């Protein structure tokens, strides 16, 4: 029940606005920027309105909790759900809903002995600027003091550094002219500013020349978009602001082209397990709704910086995200995270292929160890209102060797140590993993995935994830597994014997042969008269196992008549011609064209075009 008449009126107003909004919220292509801006603003306003109520309710409980025991340690709440994060505190201040509590929360955050590191410095500086004039002098001083007395660990990943240097840049800009004795790291404001600026431009440069390392992640996209929004809105230097805006275009376009009604599809560098098997709950979904607007509303506090931002997504990127009227295949080149040992190259390329339709997306990385711990190499993800709308396979690999490629600590020690943090790293049943024994060959709507496990491979099995929410999953006498979800028809041909294991939300296909693999073909329901028709067609396609398993070589002729031959690890032939992945540019497809040499990304859709040009970075 809403007791505040002003709140009630504003919600009614938002409802009217939403009803009157152009059909952009249902995924319609828009013809001009003003249409998009209007629709975005309505979504942003509704996000702020809903989260204001949530934050105010939390603030009430927060005050009850802390007033009951004034000695309670800073920022300890009764439940984790009741924690008021810095952006929510800024919201309380900015909206005027509870300025006092908002300030108190930020002060406690800044005084908390265990708040530190890259997340802290970014989030507190974002909140500092978003809260604006409503910040009390005491809050300002407390935050400032925290950046003198608090160790701020920079972290060891790409997103850590972007967060750290964004926060450091803004802090140095906010408090210029101070000497090293005033800062946690002993460097002056000028030194911190220069270092942060140099790194931020470096990150932009490497991303636009050889690609992101933590690319296309439904889990981690939040920690790239959030700092870019923070930079865009609060840096004083117009050159940095322009660059941040262009990077927002770049990362958003990268998301849009592999976006399927809320879901970030294709292969991913890093995912949390639950995002891998339930893509509908990944953090990217919130960004998808706010930026593209073709799903039900998702209210996440980490989207507040975007909702408050003056940045506006170019309408053409929106259109790329929501228009699935024509199937297309899109290619991307990314990079491996910094490989500090055991490799010839620091950042070998990653090759991505994604086939997009309105019913499903089939996407893949070329395979191997491209990211430690959380890699998601391939899947078919389909559009359906059911949960867990994804099917994929993997080899649950782990090793100190893999970790030592990317982390400097001791090889014997790393697996156990990483397991303590990520909990499932050594788990034989895990649902995200890179593996040196896995490679893919994708052509449009077909993929061959081969595994060639070493004799001494840990966890010598491969697993397949089939959600229980599929409308159908049958094993045909031809050897094909047929599955159907939403308007997606799928077929998987396992190359070896396997078993089914029932789990909470899925069926696990498990096969214990070390030389192994799967042929997968996917289609939209519209392409066939019926699912039976699809089955009949697939069953008649040629599967060439004449060399398998003596050799890790298979062939398959697709329903479209294309002949794929694949030999592990990297011999790929399409209709008799070798496939050269190394020629793949940063972006290549009907909507996105990008070349690392020019640092330009051209986004086109219909008659609209937008060029993101970062060739003039300092």
């Amino acid at each position, binding site marked *: 029940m809403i007791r505040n008449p002003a709140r009630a009126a504003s919600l009614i107003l938002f409802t009217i606005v939403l009803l009157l909004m152009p059909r952009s919220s249902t995924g319609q292509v828009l013809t001009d920027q003003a249409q998009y801006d209007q629709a975005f603003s309505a979504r942003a306003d509704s996000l702020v309105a809903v989260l204001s109520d949530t934050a105010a309710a939390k603030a009430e409980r927060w005050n009850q909790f802390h007033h009951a025991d004034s000695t309670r340690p800073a920022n300890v709440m009764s439940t984790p759900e009741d924690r008021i994060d810095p952006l929510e505190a800024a919201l309380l201040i900015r909206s005027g809903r509870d300025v006092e509590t908002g300030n108190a929360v930020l002060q406690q955050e800044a005084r908390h*002995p*265990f708040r*530190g*590191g890259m*997340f802290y410095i970014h989030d507190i500086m974002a909140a500092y600027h978003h809260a604006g004039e409503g910040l009390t002098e005491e809050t300002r*001083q407390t935050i400032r003091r925290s950046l*003198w*007395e*608090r*160790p*701020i*660990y*920079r*972290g*060891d990943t790409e997103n850590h*550094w972007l967060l750290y*240097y964004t926060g450091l840049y803004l802090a140095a800009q906010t408090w210029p002219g101070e000497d*090293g*004795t*005033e800062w*946690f*790291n*002993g*460097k002056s404001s000028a030194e911190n500013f220069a*270092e942060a600026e*140099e*790194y931020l431009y*470096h990150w932009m440069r490497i991303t636009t020349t050889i690609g992101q390392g933590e690319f296309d992640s439904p889990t981690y996209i939040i920690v790239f978009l959030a700092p870019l929004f923070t930079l865009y809105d609060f840096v004083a230097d117009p050159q940095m602001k322009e660059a941040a805006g262009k990077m927002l275009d770049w990362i958003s376009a990268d998301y849009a082209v592999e976006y399927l009604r809320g879901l970030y599809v294709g292969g991913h560098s890093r995912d949390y397990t639950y995002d891998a098997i339930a893509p509908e709950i990944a953090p990217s979904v919130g960004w998808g709704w706010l930026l593209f607007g073709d799903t039900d509303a998702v209210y996440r506090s980490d989207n507040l910086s975007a909702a408050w931002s003056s940045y506006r997504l170019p309408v053409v990127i929106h259109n790329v995200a929501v228009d699935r009227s024509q199937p297309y295949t899109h290619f991307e080149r990314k990079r491996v995270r910094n490989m*500090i*040992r*055991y490799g010839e190259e620091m950042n070998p390329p990653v090759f991505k292929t994604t086939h997009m339709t309105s019913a499903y997306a089939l996407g893949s990385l070329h395979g191997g160890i491209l990211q430690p711990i959380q890699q998601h190499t391939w899947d078919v993800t389909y559009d359906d209102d059911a949960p867990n709308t994804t099917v994929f396979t993997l080899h649950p690999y782990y090793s100190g060797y893999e970790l030592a490629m990317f982390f*400097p*600590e*001791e*090889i*014997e*020690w790393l697996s156990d*140590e990483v397991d*303590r*943090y990520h909990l499932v790293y050594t788990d034989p049943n895990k649902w995200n993993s890179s593996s040196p024994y896995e490679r893919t060959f994708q052509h449009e709507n077909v993929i061959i995935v081969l595994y060639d496990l070493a004799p001494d491979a840990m966890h010598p099995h491969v697993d397949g994830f089939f959600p229980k929410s599929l409308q159908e999953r049958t094993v045909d006498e031809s050897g094909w597994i047929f599955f159907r979800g939403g308007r997606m028809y799928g077929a998987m041909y396992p190359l070896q014997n396997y078993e089914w294991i029932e789990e909470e939300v899925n069926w696990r296909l498990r096969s214990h042969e070390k030389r192994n693999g799967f042929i997968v073909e996917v289609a939209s329901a519209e392409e066939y008269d019926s699912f039976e028709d699809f089955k009949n067609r697939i069953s008649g396609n040629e599967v060439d196992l004449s060399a398998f398993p003596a050799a890790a070589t298979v062939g398959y002729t697709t329903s479209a008549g294309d002949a794929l031959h694949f030999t592990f690890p990297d011999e790929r032939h399409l209709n008799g011609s070798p496939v050269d992945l190394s020629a793949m540019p940063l972006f290549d497809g009907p909507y996105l064209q990008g070349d690392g040499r020019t640092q330009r990304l051209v986004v086109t859709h219909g008659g609209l075009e937008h060029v993101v040009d970062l060739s003039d970075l300092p």
Partner: protein
Amino acid sequence: MQLTSNARTRRTSFFLGQQWPTGRLVSVALLLVAFMLSSSCTSSHAVIPTETSAESPEERLYAVMLSTRKHRLAGENPTVGLFVSRNAGRTWDHTGWAQGKTFAVAAAQGGGDTLFTASGNGVMRTTDGGRFWKITTGWRVTEVQDVTLNPARSQQVFAATPYGIFRSDDFGETWVRRNDGLTSTFVAAIRVDRAQPDRVFAGTEDGLFTSSDGGENWRRTEVRLPVRSVRQSSSDPARWILGLQGRGVAITEDGGESWRFAEGEIASHTIYIADFEPTSADIIYAGGWESGVFRSADGGRTWSQFTSGLSGLALNVHGIAISRTDPSHVFAGTMGAGLYESLDAGENWQPVALDVFELGQIWNLQIYGGRP
């Protein structure tokens, strides 16, 4: 134990109408005094000593705790980083950053108030015994594994990183990368020859490299296994010992011209740390993965393995320090079981300062000062 956050006290004072930390006021005053007294101060940054102090009679034991097994992501984690004991491990003070990653520590000659740490954020330096720290490096220097000072050139500092070797000739004010000749830029350990100031030893993933021109150029040696540690005997500068990945240790008695690989049980272990007893190059201790502590009394020709008092995670030893005052007093830093000491030259072990180092991953131990 005394703990301070970021090596600074929280006391505050009022000065010029503003609230200033007392520590900062004191620091400013000391800097002014130092500036007035120092005729050699040419930098606009910190006060930089131009020559090292004499060996301190006080023995200081430094322990670097990288992390603990209690640590959780974004959790309320125990204090880690650099600890110092001035009474042979009985009590400990924390100095520097309480969170983040610290891999190793090095003191200027004499073990006085000037320290460098090899840290996740770069190379950190204090010149006032840990009250004020500065990250001396920029963003390109990260995950620093080891740091060492040139004993003969007080301004020269080397840092070993996963991205190569960095050298500073101005006490950390500026750094340059020096990788010419390296076939692997993953460098875990680095030391300068006390007898030859231009001779530097670098332990890399591709083995041991040496430089004879102060790190400008590197030459691969016959030791081609991943090197985890490099140490020089303080009693015989011709003797060096390397901890090796999966192959025990390698020893030279001729300043690195030739190397001898250890045989026996130790050869089947990865050895993270091996070091000489301060007064005798024949007595050597070594520790590594699931090894406990090895000791040799004949310059590394034969080894005895000791595990009495060490079990489970305590068998994984990553740091060793031998008291100069009492060479039978040996410390072992373990990977997840905290700090241990032996009072009988390594034969029996017991945990030390459990309240400070509980489940600690002690990555590095160093002893400075003290007199045999």
